[in-house]
């Protein structure tokens, strides 16, 4: 397991930017949710990643399926950071904003840096559109935009003009304006469009006219940059490839990586994967991805609700598959009774929580890390479950593999915490060497020998009980949620047995802890004035801010927890090397509370529950507060 966490540190080889002005560019594309913004953004991300840049993305779309066009709440945006250094966050402010309508301008202009490039589609600035966006006056005329390098282009018109000859309807032509825009942005970043071209041909293979129209628009946009006499202050961005570790890469988001990782883990354990789930934002894509793995032998089951989902996964685990279930906070809440059953019956089970803003339905499309308490403590009884958290899209794969290892080695359910941000964000990902090194097989042995078989006898080291699967002759036994007699597993109401079993369940977590790789420092030294202790998707901003501060010579380190529960046994000692520790997290202080209980020292937390990841400057502020600016 130790090796797996090296994956993350491998990224550490990427340099920190010392001159943000030239090392990376943060661009945001925003428009109506009908404008194809997410597609445009992800194609741009793909191109940048292919080119060899490091990238970080933040798709941000409305909760509504199709919000009424032209409204502020209907705006969809894709933020992208393209760097020749390590980027990891999508950027506190953007260097460039492409606003395809007034509402998009209104919503995001505040986050464009002074002097930033502002491209707007002038065709969309009609009176009615301005009014819908809540503009009393035309912002192009009243000086509102004077702080920026404004580049107004009649994108809609230019697109339809480019397609006039193609034969497509005006409506269809207008729908191509995102490709026109993408072409222009490619030009801006000195990128060729051949990648997008082949993707378009592929995507619309069955609709050649649509493919052709999109291609025409794309090329027209690209060409526009080349030939139009753009004002002198509009310069192109020159971002060289980042010195990434060698290997084969693709982009991936956290949900994909999680599903693939779970499948990989099951395979390395010589198990078939069973994914039982009920759709919920932002976890549904896990189900969608699993459904596509059927040819690979993975079973997926869309249950009638979250309880049925976990029930089916427990049933599948009992029958010898690797049972997996996934959901988000409110759905996880429904699973907590059954989680107790999984603990009681000591079956392997993976529970993925792709967290979103709470409480209750909360902010379903926004990110948050506020289900940590639920994962660690959220059950009746003394019901320990290990919890592990992923910190970036690619990490979801590794965390998934490790979770399978723990669950099968110790015969226990395990929680994996992901969140809406990394679930949807795309990042370049070095493809793993499956079957080797960090991904070596860890085949599971099921019980087959009736001789001396005791279903609730525990391995003294791992505290696992034997996994005896229905269908195996001679191992017939009954399990259930009533307390079981140690060893034989029959129902037992005996007080001493219950005390012993409670201790065994607790000891299982101790066994897991003993097995954990020692906690390391993500960036910075192993001692100093301040350690920022983070977990999950806050990794990116904390790392960026810490590395910049270190470059400035500040005695700060970043310690990032993958193992939330049990905590790595050396954590306390490690943190004793720091005068102060602060926990920035996207909740109201949950890990901080946990650490206070476990470390026996003050652990202040800094909370950000704004439906988005921390900004780098918010983390920098913490560092400055403690160490001094």
């Amino acid at each position, binding site marked *: 397991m130790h090796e797996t966490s090296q994956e993350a540190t491998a990224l550490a080889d990427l340099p920190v930017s010392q001159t943000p002005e030239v090392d990376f560019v943060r661009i945001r594309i925003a428009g109506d949710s009908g404008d194809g913004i997410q597609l445009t953004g992800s194609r741009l991300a*793909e191109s940048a*990643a*292919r080119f*060899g840049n490091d990238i970080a993305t933040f798709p941000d779309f409305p909760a509504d399926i199709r919000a009424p066009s032209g409204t502020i709440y209907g705006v969809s945006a894709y933020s992208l950071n393209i760097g020749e250094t390590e980027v990891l966050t999508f950027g506190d402010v953007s260097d460039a904003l492409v606003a395809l309508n007034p509402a998009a301008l209104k919503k995001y202009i505040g986050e464009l840096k002074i002097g930033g490039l502002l491209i707007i589609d002038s065709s969309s600035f009609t009176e009615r559109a301005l009014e819908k966006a809540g503009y009393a006056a035309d912002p192009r005329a009243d000086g509102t935009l004077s702080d920026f390098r404004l580049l107004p282009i009649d994108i809609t018109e230019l697109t339809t003009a480019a397609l006039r000859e193609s034969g497509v309807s005006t409506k269809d032509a207008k729908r191509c304006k995102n490709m026109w825009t993408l072409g222009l942005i490619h030009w801006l970043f000195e990128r060729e469009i051949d990648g997008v071209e082949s993707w378009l041909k592929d995507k619309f293979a069955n609709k050649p006219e649509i493919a052709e129209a999109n291609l025409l628009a794309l090329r027209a946009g690209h060409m526009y940059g080349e030939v139009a006499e753009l004002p002198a202050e509009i310069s192109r961005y020159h971002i060289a490839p980042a010195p*990434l*570790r060698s290997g*084969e*890469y*693709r982009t*991936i988001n956290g949900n994909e990586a999680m599903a*693939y990782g779970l*499948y*990989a883990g099951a*395979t*390395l354990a*010589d198990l*078939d994967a*069973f994914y039982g789930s009920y759709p919920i934002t932002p976890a549904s894509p896990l189900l969608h991805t699993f459904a596509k*793995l*059927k*040819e*690979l*032998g993975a*079973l997926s*089951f869309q*249950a*009638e*609700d979250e309880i*049925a*989902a*976990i*029930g*089916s996964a*427990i*049933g*599948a*685990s*009992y*029958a010898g598959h690797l*049972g997996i279930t996934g959901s988000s906070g409110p759905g996880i809440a429904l699973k907590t009774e*059954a989680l107790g059953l999984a603990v009681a019956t000591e079956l392997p089970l993976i529970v993925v929580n792709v967290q979103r803003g709470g409480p209750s339905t909360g902010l379903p499309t926004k990110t948050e890390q506020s289900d940590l308490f639920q994962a660690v403590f959220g059950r009746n009884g003394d019901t320990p479950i290990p919890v592990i958290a992923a910190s970036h899209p690619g990490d979801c794969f590794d965390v998934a593999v490790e979770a399978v290892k723990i669950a099968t080695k110790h015969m226990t359910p395990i929680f994996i915490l992901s969140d809406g941000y990394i679930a949807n964000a795309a990042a370049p990902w*070095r*493809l793993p060497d*499956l*079957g080797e090194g960090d991904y070596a097989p860890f*085949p599971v042995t099921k019980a087959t020998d009736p001789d001396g078989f005791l279903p609730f006898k525990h391995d003294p080291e791992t505290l696992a009980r034997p996994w005896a699967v*229905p*269908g*195996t*002759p001679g*191992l*017939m*036994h*009954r*399990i*259930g*949620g*009533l307390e079981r007699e140690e060893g034989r597993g*029959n*129902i037992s109401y005996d007080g001493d047995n219950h005390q012993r079993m409670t201790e065994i369940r607790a000891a299982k977590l101790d066994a897991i802890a003993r097995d954990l790789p020692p906690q390391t420092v993500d960036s910075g030294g192993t001692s100093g004035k301040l350690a920022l202790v983070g977990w999950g998707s806050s990794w990116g901003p904390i790392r960026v801010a810490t590395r910049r501060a270190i470059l400035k010579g500040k005695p700060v380190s970043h310690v990032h927890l993958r193992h939330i529960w049990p905590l790595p046994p050396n954590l306390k000692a490690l943190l004793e090397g720091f005068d102060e520790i602060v926990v920035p997290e996207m909740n109201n202080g949950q890990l901080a509370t946990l650490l206070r209980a476990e470390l026996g020292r003050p652990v202040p937390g800094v909370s950000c529950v704004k439906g988005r990841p921390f900004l780098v400057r918010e983390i920098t502020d913490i560092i400055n507060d403690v160490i001094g600016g």
Partner: protein
Amino acid sequence: MTKLTVKDFASDLDVRWCPGCGDYAVLKALQKTLADGGSTLEDTLVVSGIGCSSRLPYYMATYGFHSIHGRAPTLATGAKLANPDLDVWVVTGDGDGLSIGGNHLLHVLRRNVDLQVVLFNNQIYGLTKGQFSPTSKQGTKSPSSPGGSVETGLNPCVYALGAGGQFVARCIDTQAKVLQPVLEAAQAFKGTGFVEVLQNCVIYNDGIFDGLKDKKTGPDHTLHVEHGKPMVFGVNRDKGLRVAKSGFGLEVVTLGDGLKEEDLLVHDEKNVHLAQALAALGENDGEPVVIGVLYRHGKHEFVEGARHGLPKTPLSRDEKLNRLNATLRTAETWRVE
């Protein structure tokens, strides 16, 4: 291998229901069905929820899972999907299966998962000491309804049919002659075999089915239907059912006076609307409670469909990893040197 006996299907735990509880008879009938049918211990899995009836798996020498309240169908579905070779039985009660677990019962029936659901209907919550249940008769006095329950009791078979159940039957705990063949038929059915068993709770609802079980007068109050056979019943086999004139209704008639058995309605277990009417009988005076297989229609078993598309033969670890490698590369990839 020698065929197993009833005894072989009994675990070594003491059976701990109240003396006289109807559950004993059902347990025995199940064990006998399995033994007679040549089932093996290792390929049989009994999953239950919580309730007196749900203790049943402990008394079986097969694999068993005493799960949580109302959720047995979900575990059973997962286990069956994972291993279709298992013969899976769900044991549940009127509280477990119809109160907290009504939704899972709906969906297992709708999907038509190839397993058997045996619902012990004693019209009461036994294990929690006698509160009224969703099947209790209106007016039932219980600790939680001292003034008599207000709700209309649900008819489990009517519900099962409404949920899309494809095999729906009703039996009486102590009438092994009907119960055992029905359990056997449910097991043979490719899909969800739903069997409601009217079960006596001696402690909290004693005797509610006595009228039906009475050796002497019981036949006047129950009708055992069999596919293709006329619907005749009664101590003297002198009563029967006919379709009401308007259609969509059943009437009880007395044979004689020119009315012969041939004039009676013949049971057609493929007619769902008839089944609905048969299931509903028994609420009014003079109507028999119908037992036997009310409905059986073999369409669209779920597990087979859900597993369709899996590799024909199990993949080796390496084949799986290779396919995963290929899948990961369906996205565009690039090399950094």
